[in-house]
């Protein structure tokens, strides 16, 4: 989608693009970014709790709004590649910690759950702000929001239809946002150990994609590569879980008999 935006920027200098086509194109391009944003928010909120996740998402939106107000159409001056590298690397190292914990827990307790799970054992504070949830949601919203803003500016300015581009992005936020809220209850029914493994896989995939992209390296298939990365990490997680279960099998058998 970003390549399409760049291509539009290069090619549309003197080609008139009608407003509906700008609306649809911006909607589709923005929807990809908003889906990534919503996946991070729903995943983090389901694992760490909603209050701090919403606070982080709200703070991310507030910073994004300030950036858009201050920079306006000059938003492309923001060093997005540096942001991708920094935020991607941080999401990756944190996502890998969850992936590792998720593999260990699913190997030990299976997909149904961990039984003795407690918020305090997870380091989630009973009162005040959970800064881990806040930071993850904040980064996800800020980076993806900036990507959407870039898409709006690229398509809107090159086609001289900024209003249609803004409307397309706003529609993407509304549609994907409502869908995300609707899936919240479904996601929360997933057992915690499996959910931690799933969210760890997703954070690692997004983090890998953004960090490498931030270095200026192009992914084959552009954003489709995120799906391939998710499959790759899920496959690795399944393999390691099976290995750990096999290694721990005599111990599990003894425990069951005892």
């Amino acid at each position, binding site marked *: 989608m970003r390549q399409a935006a760049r291509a539009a920027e290069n090619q549309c200098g003197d080609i008139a693009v009608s407003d509906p086509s700008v609306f649809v194109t911006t909607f589709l391009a923005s929807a990809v970014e908003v889906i990534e944003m919503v996946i991070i928010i729903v995943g983090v909120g389901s694992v760490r709790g909603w209050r701090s996740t919403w606070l982080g998402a709200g703070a991310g939106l507030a910073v994004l709004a300030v950036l858009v107000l201050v920079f306006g159409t000059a938003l492309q001056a923001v060093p997005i590649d540096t942001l991708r590298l920094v935020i991607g*690397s941080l999401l990756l*190292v944190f996502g*890998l910690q969850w992936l590792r914990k998720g593999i260990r827990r699913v190997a030990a307790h299976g997909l149904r759950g961990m039984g003795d799970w407690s918020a305090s054992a997870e380091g989630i504070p009973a009162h005040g702000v959970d*800064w881990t949830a806040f930071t993850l949601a904040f980064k996800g919203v800020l980076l993806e929001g900036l990507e959407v803003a870039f898409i709006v500016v690229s398509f809107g300015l090159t086609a001289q239809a900024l209003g249609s581009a803004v409307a397309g992005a706003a529609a993407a936020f509304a549609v994907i946002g409502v869908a995300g809220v609707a899936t919240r209850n479904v996601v929360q029914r997933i057992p915690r150990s499996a959910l931690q493994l799933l969210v760890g896989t997703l954070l690692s995939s997004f983090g890998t994609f953004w960090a490498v992209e931030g270095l200026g390296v192009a*992914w084959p298939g552009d954003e489709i590569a995120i799906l391939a990365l998710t499959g790759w990490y899920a496959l690795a997680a399944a393999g390691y879980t099976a290995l750990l279960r096999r290694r721990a099998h005599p111990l599990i058998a003894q425990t069951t008999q005892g």
Partner: protein
Amino acid sequence: MIWRWLAGFGRFWYEFIIGDDWTIAATVAAALTATWTLHLAGHDAWWLLPLAVVIEVGLSLRSD
């Protein structure tokens, strides 16, 4: 008060980045550096980080 806040801030980022196994963050940093070096030399390098990360997670799980 400020020192306590700074210590808490530092502890948060240490836990966020390093967690309970520093080798993961070190591997990510090394793999990103190698990716960038290969990219500057004109090679396709997108495959390096996901491969390095999966190997490192396996080694980390093995050492637990």
